[in-house]
């Protein structure tokens, strides 16, 4: 568990990036910090591994105040994945993944063996082990970044807009991979993004920021969609428009779920609650994650909108 207590960060130039911020980040869950740029979300992430030190307030990891921990050792015990992968361009893929184990004194042979295993874990072909990062695609580099973050099997994984710089198709693929990995690995993930769809897809807990490090709302995706704290949150999550503002329409004897533009987003499947649907398939929507809010449905939590976006076409009924 990571706990922020009244944390404020003021930079030397006087900018207050984070103001009186408190948050409990539960273990083995994914917490997503989401907001536009300048909202202080990255600063908060960086305070966990002391890349940035708080001006006031305390940050504890499992009860230990991070300001009392030695920064270099602390950073080696926490996985870190950043935008543009942050890989060392002069080290081969396997060496990049083995970086932190090597820093912690693991032998070259053992570190390499572990690196190859991790390549399997993140879905990279082992034949890429002796390539340099510049010889990989953006998506592959990002996978290497994730593998490096996991190399010492840390309890905590910090991810700073890790999929921000890859194209949408690859991003969707990497997001699915992360969902799968998290199911297998059970890490405490703190994930920073400016993309609300990504936040709802990945987050067990989502923290929405306004400018200047002020928290607009903390909750599960369901809670935030069902009850946006204010107009800012409602606008930010887009609950009032487009593909999230769904309603039901009867068509040929079935209940269609229709988006804000009147386009069919899916069909309503009776009697399927989130518990029934869990584990029934790979698609995240069918696992009961709220990615949309169904207005006009009498059963807002139970109405599992079976499809949105890409899969909508296939489910459209004549």
């Amino acid at each position, binding site marked *: 568990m990571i706990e922020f207590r009244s944390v404020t960060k003021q930079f030397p130039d006087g900018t207050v990036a984070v103001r009186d911020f408190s948050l409990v980040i539960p273990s083995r869950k994914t917490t997503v910090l989401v907001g536009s740029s300048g909202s202080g979300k990255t600063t908060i992430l*960086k305070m966990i*591994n002391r*890349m940035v030190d708080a001006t006031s307030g305390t940050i504890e990891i499992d009860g230990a105040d991070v300001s009392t921990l030695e920064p*270099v*050792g602390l*950073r*080696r*015990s926490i996985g*870190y994945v*950043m935008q*543009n992968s*942050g*890989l*060392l*361009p*002069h*080290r081969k893929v396997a060496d990049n993944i083995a*970086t*932190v184990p090597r*820093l*912690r004194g693991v032998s070259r042979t053992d570190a390499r063996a572990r690196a190859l295993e991790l390549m399997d874990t993140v879905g990279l072909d082992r034949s890429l082990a002796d390539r*340099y990062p*510049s*010889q990989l695609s953006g998506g592959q580099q990002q996978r290497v970044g994730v593998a*490096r*973050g996991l190399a010492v099997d840390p309890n905590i994984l910090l991810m700073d807009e890790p999929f921000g710089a890859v194209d949408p198709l690859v991003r969707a693929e990497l997001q699915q991979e992360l969902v799968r990995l998290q199911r297998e690995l059970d890490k405490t993930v703190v994930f920073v993004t400016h993309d609300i769809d990504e936040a709802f897809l990945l987050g067990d807990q989502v923290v929405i920021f306004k400018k200047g490090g002020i928290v607009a709302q903390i909750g599960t995706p369901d809670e935030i969609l069902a009850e946006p704290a204010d107009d800012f949150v409602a606008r930010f999550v887009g609950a009032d428009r487009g593909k999230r503002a769904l309603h039901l329409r009867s068509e040929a004897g079935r209940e269609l779920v229709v988006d804000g533009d009147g386009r069919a987003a899916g069909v309503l499947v009776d009697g399927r609650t989130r518990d029934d649907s869990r584990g029934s398939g790979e698609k995240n929507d069918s696992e009961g994650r709220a990615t949309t809010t169904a207005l006009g449905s009498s059963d807002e939590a139970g109405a599992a909108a079976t499809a949105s976006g890409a899969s909508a076409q296939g489910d459209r009924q004549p």
Partner: protein
Amino acid sequence: MNWLVENAGQIWELTLVHAALSAVPIVVGFVLAIPVGWLANRYHASRGTVLAIVGLLYAIPSLPLFIALPSLLGTRILDPVNIEVALSLYALAIMVRTASDAFASVDVDILLSATAVGFSTWRRFWYVELPLAGPVLLSGIRVVSVSTISLLSVGSVIGVTSLGYFFIDGFQRDFPLEILVGIIGTVVIAVVFDLVLAAVGRLLLPWTSRAVGRQRGRAAERTQLAGAA
């Protein structure tokens, strides 16, 4: 031509001496320039001042420096150490600016990422900054190498043995072949040193040549695409 045959032994010997005397200042200048360049780059306020002062070293005329150094160092006038010190100062003067640029050329995001995964400042210097500054450092030492090898000849005026001896002797005896031997010998050393440095660079900086290879591959692909279109 007889002169060449008769003096082959001396030509070879002076070439070796010249090479050996040049190697020391190149290495010393390079090694000293790295910490100075790193510090100049790290503390931005000091950068301009440090680079200006070190750069001024290069403005000291070589001959007076060669002559003044024995009294400053307490060495004998003919001691090669004088030349070595003087040439090391010149090498430093050229190399510090390049070293500072080399460290400035390293992507800040990569350094931040290295820190974030747990490199200490010391380790980060040796395993990240120095290798990534390598390509620019290499270009710097190649310039220093050529400059040092040619400057060393001037030392012959004050009697320190090198290939420069052939210029002076040939000039005094009005014997162009001997001057030519001095010039060609100097050029050959410079070329050999440069080839060695380039080879060491390829060995120590393997990722740069591969990246270049990849870019070439891409360029070829583009040409093919253009051809297909």
